[in-house]
């Protein structure tokens, strides 16, 4: 009797575990591994909610199984470290600086697809290895209950002023929007000035977050008066049911001032991609008008293809003064910008 009492739960539990593992195996087996038309490995550094619908649609239309690894800027590092062991086919990034950096490290493959010509040369790599799809400007989002448009700082320089201490939020310095922005500022201001500006920023920032969604929500909720984000976060916050009394300042718009920094999000072809053919097909597909629209529509960015209307609420690219910097020039400064950020202590958060 003792024996049977011992055994029953044992077998039951073993059976349950085996069942669990088998169900797991079955379930993941059901999802066609590889599918009929092979697979596509996407490294995605963009907010997943903006990208998932497109990827699902691609999978459905082509029968190519899409495997996504969503992350943030750490994916750049990962691609770099997987140089001899390439797993990714394409890299969807929010940041031309990161993509150009990868290209200069010989980690991207040239692409001569005619589809690329829809995009202005300024917004794609010279060898076509990456191509921009949508534009985003760096702006200050502010809470209208806490601060008025007149009170808001109008230039980025002003953020270094101690009077803004604990008044604003920024992202962690490792965030690639931030890195490329710093690279651009280095071009405009030089190392020393950018460095001391970053240290002051670190000093003054009330909160340092991992991403921008945190910032728009927090500013909307009145946690802090304002924050440094990409312009579409402002439009996204406007759409919320609550906490939507926000405004946006495009910095440095004065006559002699440098203008807001404009970056592009896009897609890059990885060198040695295991599924190169699918990767090429994916990039061509992304450049079709419907997908271009979708890509910027979800996130309220401005499409780079001039034939495609900007989503309602998003500012057209010629409606504000943009920093006069060639994005492809920023790639080589990317590592230096990172170093500068590390020196200022902004890399890890508060």
């Amino acid at each position: 009797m003792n024996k049977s009492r011992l055994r029953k739960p044992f077998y039951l539990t073993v059976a349950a575990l085996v069942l669990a593992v088998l169900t797991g195996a079955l379930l993941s087996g059901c999802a066609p591994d590889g599918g009929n038309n092979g697979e596509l490995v996407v490294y995605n550094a963009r907010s997943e909610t903006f990208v998932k619908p497109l990827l699902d649609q691609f999978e459905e239309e082509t029968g190519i199984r899409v495997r996504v690894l969503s992350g943030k800027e750490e994916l750049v590092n990962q691609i770099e470290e997987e140089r001899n062991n390439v797993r990714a086919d394409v890299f969807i990034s929010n940041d031309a600086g990161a993509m150009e950096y990868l290209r200069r490290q010989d980690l991207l493959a040239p692409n001569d697809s005619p589809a690329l010509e829809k995009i202005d040369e300024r917004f794609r790599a010279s060898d076509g290895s990456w191509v921009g799809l949508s534009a985003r400007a760096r702006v200050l989002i502010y809470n209208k209950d806490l601060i008025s448009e007149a009170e808001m700082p109008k230039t980025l320089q002003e953020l270094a002023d101690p009077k803004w201490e604990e008044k604003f939020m920024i992202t962690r310095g490792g965030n690639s929007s931030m890195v490329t922005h710093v690279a651009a500022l280095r071009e405009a201001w030089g190392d020393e000035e950018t460095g001391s500006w970053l240290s002051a920023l670190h000093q003054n920032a009330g909160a340092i977050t991992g991403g921008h969604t945190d910032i728009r929500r927090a500013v909307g909720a009145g946690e802090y008066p304002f924050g440094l984000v990409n312009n579409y976060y402002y439009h996204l916050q406007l759409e919320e049911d609550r906490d939507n009394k926000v405004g946006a300042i495009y910095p440095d718009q004065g006559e002699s001032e440098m203008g807001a920094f404009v970056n592009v999000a896009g897609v890059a072809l990885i060198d040695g991609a295991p599924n190169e053919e699918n990767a090429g097909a994916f990039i061509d597909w992304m450049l079709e008008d419907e997908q271009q629209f979708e890509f910027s529509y979800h996130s309220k960015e401005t499409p780079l293809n001039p034939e495609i209307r900007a989503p309602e609420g998003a500012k057209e690219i010629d409606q504000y003064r943009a920093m006069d910097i060639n994005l492809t020039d920023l790639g080589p400064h990317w590592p230096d910008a990172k170093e500068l950020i590390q020196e200022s202590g902004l890399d890890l958060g508060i």
Partner: protein
Amino acid sequence: MPEKEIACAENRIAFYWQAALENPSRFRLYIWRGNPPGFIPEALALVTALVMFIPILYVLVRGIQGGWDRWLTLLDTRIPHLLWNTLSLTVVVSLAALLIGVAAAWLVTRTDLPARKIWAWLLALPLVVPPYVGAISYIIVFGPQGLVRNLAGETPFDIYSFGGVAAVLTLFTYPYVFLITSAALKRFNLNYEEAGRMAGLNHLQVFRKITLPLLRPAMGAGVLLVSLYTLSDFGLVSMLRYTTFTTAIYFQMGSFDRLSAAVLSVVLILITLVILWLEYRTRGRQKFVQDAGTFRKPLPFSLGRWRLAGLLGLGTVVAAALALPLSVLAYWSYYGIARGALDGRFLEYTSHSLLTAGAAAFFCAVLALPLVYLKSRHPSPVSSFYEKLAMAGYALPGVIIALGMVFIFNSYIPALYGTAVVLVMAYTIRFLPQAMQAEGASLNQVSPRLDEAGRSLGYPPWQVISRIILPLIRPGILAGMALVFVSAVKELPATLLLRPPGMDTLAVRIWIEASEGFYDMAAPASLLIIIVSAIPLKWLINRF
């Protein structure tokens, strides 16, 4: 060390060396205390122990080789700040957990509170809530955009502060102290307290001079678990926007360079060792002997008018650590499910969790066997050494193990890099000790006389193992598997760093959804993880 001792130690090493060279088989006999195991179990144990230890060793080596410049820069800029953040959090959380845990344990074991059995269960249950899930529920309720703000207009306190992090972390770690201390209180020999009473001490003095000192080992063990957890936590701390060594290593590894991450890891490993050493030191000086003697039920201490206060206190803890997270998650799950959170993908994520955790549970159960067998049946310095090597992963944060795995697989075993194998292996390294403890406890209850009986009836050793030992320690094997399974399902940082593309697990999804602020989409997965974690609760609680 005095000179004489050093000389003595040197002589001893020379002596062993000589002995090993001259007569290897006798030397083996000697170091195994005359009872060496068979070749196969020893080989298995040795290989397992080494494999468990290599990734950590590799991180250490890379970190130490990180370069003087890198060390200097980090020592100058990063490390002092991180040290302060990490240590202050560890100390505050440990003390708070100690206070809550001991008070609650005393209330439910020694006083006349009503429904003490039910309270004991409720107070242990927060153990099944992964702290990062607890953090999500607190952000939903008390966050700057949370429910309280929406209802009352403002939040009572800032959840993204040191106090917020420490409070939430305490709520989900105090059960360690509670469980260990109440187990000790139940085994308590009453004679000492009675002697104290007869010697004229009042209740308070008895508690302070007799009860507390006798509980010292249990409290130490509890605080050790809490502080090691605090050092290793990634999810809760980073969701609440706080930076410790563990989160710094994670972000350093992601966006900047791995060598700096390895340098920070070396410091974190040192801190862990210091804490282990401190616990050992403070315990080591005192000797505790309780004779088994009487097992009378203690007379419950009458709380009198303090009963209400006691109930209120326990009620607050249970409400904050259990009722709040569960109800918030249930509520948000409802919304999430209505918005379509339970789609085909959710099933896929669940299956990935089950598969990887199931595989880890299986490997841990199998690999732990030779190690515990050697430890129990061939006790000697050698088997303890193997055991310690294999235990290394337990005290250390998942990020460090992940870092070691990335280093090793990317450089030396590229074919497996980026496959689920690496992930399962990381789980195994991290959680094997749980299987070892469960199986070891079981095996120690099986008398070696049974082995001898089997041998004398003509079974060869392997048949003794398969026909006598294994059937008898089944419950231990199962308990170990269940514990590993649950720990692996909950694991966050290593999973984030090592998952292959397209292989997101439930824990990863919770992280991704929550980091974008979609808490309703994170809620169903969180609830599922809590339910899964409740499976081995019986073993979890009895372990202490």
